[in-house]
């Protein structure tokens, strides 16, 4: 018997729990040569702002042990181009689209969410209050529980779409901001965005990134992410989307067992653009091997 891979994120039902993380798959369209994105649970589009953003000066990336630092700065095409150019193509492909969005203040978040509400072809919103690479908005909101609560509530008030809030790990206790987001009206949480990090070219003694500090992603951060998913699962019932260094199906399973309802693949897409196909198959094969009928039986099943 084929196991049931369906999961629910708020009112959104997904055919399987595998998504591509924002900022690692373009607008989803760029992934088409490597696999039909309609076969994904969902694709999370590159972080969107009201107006186009050029992003940060180079150098923006550097390779680190089992990971990378980035300081892209949320370069994106802006709302108008996304709606006119990207979304219609995604709709035609039949992909489930989650729009990651950000602003520099609470009003920006609210306006963007209001304008995305009810747009055909958008299945959910992912509110980015966790980007470490922009001066305002982003992580500045995500590190203050009271700000998180109010910003999420402001967005909640203007959208009927499932609202996912992506949290930063750059905080003492992720359970505090997770609770603030849940109480603000989030339907789900994405855990985690990148960890702040820094690298230096010792020959030139210059920081490797133009903005000096960037966000660390990749397998190097996976244990941190798994820990945070597990911690939040112990205290809140809200669905969690686990994200951070998933490289194989085994890694995705680790997040599900820790308590994630779904997972996002990020940095791995750069190296293995078709890896998500194997991850979906690998989760299915695992369920068969363990005699489990549905993936939801796995969620939070860590044996203590």
């Amino acid at each position: 018997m084929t196991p049931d891979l369906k999961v629910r994120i708020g009112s959104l039902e997904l055919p399987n729990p595998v998504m591509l993380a924002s900022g690692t798959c373009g607008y989803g369209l760029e992934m088409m040569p490597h696999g039909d994105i309609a076969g994904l649970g969902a694709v999370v589009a590159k972080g969107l702002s009201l107006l186009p953003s050029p992003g940060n000066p180079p150098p923006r990336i550097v390779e680190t042990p089992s990971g990378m630092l980035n300081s892209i700065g949320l370069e994106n095409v802006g709302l108008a181009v996304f709606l006119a150019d990207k979304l219609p193509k995604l709709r035609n492909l039949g992909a489930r689209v989650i729009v990651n969005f950000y602003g520099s203040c609470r009003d920006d978040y609210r306006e963007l969410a209001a304008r995305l509400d009810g747009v055909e072809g958008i299945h959910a919103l992912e509110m980015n209050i966790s980007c470490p690479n922009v001066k305002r908005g982003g992580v500045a909101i995500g590190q203050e529980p009271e700000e998180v609560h109010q910003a999420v509530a402001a967005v909640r008030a203007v959208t009927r779409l499932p609202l996912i809030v992506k949290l930063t790990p750059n905080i003492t206790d992720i359970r505090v901001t997770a609770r603030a987001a849940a109480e603000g009206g989030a339907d789900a949480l994405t855990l985690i965005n990148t960890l702040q990090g820094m690298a230096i070219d010792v020959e030139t003694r210059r920081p490797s990134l133009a903005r000096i500090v960037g966000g660390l992603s990749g397998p190097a951060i996976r244990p941190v992410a798994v820990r945070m998913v597990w911690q939040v699962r112990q205290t809140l019932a809200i669905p969690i989307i686990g994200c951070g260094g998933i490289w194989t199906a085994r890694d995705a399973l680790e997040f599900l067992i820790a308590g994630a309802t779904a997972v996002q693949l990020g940095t791995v897409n750069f190296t293995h653009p078709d890896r998500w196909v194997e991850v979906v198959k690998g989760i299915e094969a695992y369920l068969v091997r363990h005699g489990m009928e549905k993936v939801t039986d796995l969620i939070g099943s860590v044996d203590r």
Partner: protein
Amino acid sequence: MLLDVRAIRQLTEDFYLLELRWPAGMAAPLPGQFVMVRTREGTDPPWRRPFGVHDFRRVRGEHVLSLLFQVVGPTTRDMASLQAGSMLDLLGPHGRGFRLEASEHWLVSGGRGVAPLFFAARALNGRGAPCRAFLGGRSAGHVLRERELERLGCRVETATDDGSSGHRGLVTDLVERALARLSARRLASIVLLACGPHGMLKAVAGIAARRGVQAQVSVDPLMACGRGLCLGCTVQAHDGYRLACQHGPVFNSRDLAWGTT
């Protein structure tokens, strides 16, 4: 995709030439385009490595893609130990390459920068277009493909830091000197194609601006994906940022902001 290694040959102490069988039906690469290579399972190094296509030709009924590489790290060390019959994981071709539209092209390379220029010389030879090559390197062992470029009809001059091959000094000295003798009309018919270290490319851009010739430079910033996903390989143009992987890696030197880098 996995490609079959057809042959591998060590050229000098740390340079190798790798020939891969290009699957029938795959889009053929164009001069200046690149491929992304991975040699290891697991998560280190996490990124693929970009290589400008060195050559692409038909040999006894099959398409052969060549990579010229210098051993500098884990991926190239692994590549050096490949053997005929091994497989190599590669994605591509990616990017926008050289636009070979001038009546005369001069190739300017530093070290391994000769790799993608050779493919341009192959294409120019195919259409009977005149070509000169200026090859620079640290020493004679870092000046590669001199003979082969001559066989493709290029007039070749070399420069090395230690004088072990050709001019002792910078390859850009040779270019500057050769251009200095030409009339404005002749200069207008020449396009420089350059690939090498950043400092060399910057010097080529300066020469092009001073002498009134066009130059196309192939840049090489750190690249994670090679396909416009990570937005990491940004270069500064006069009117904003460009992605080396999608808008380049070959740019008109006049479009880039050299002063800030």
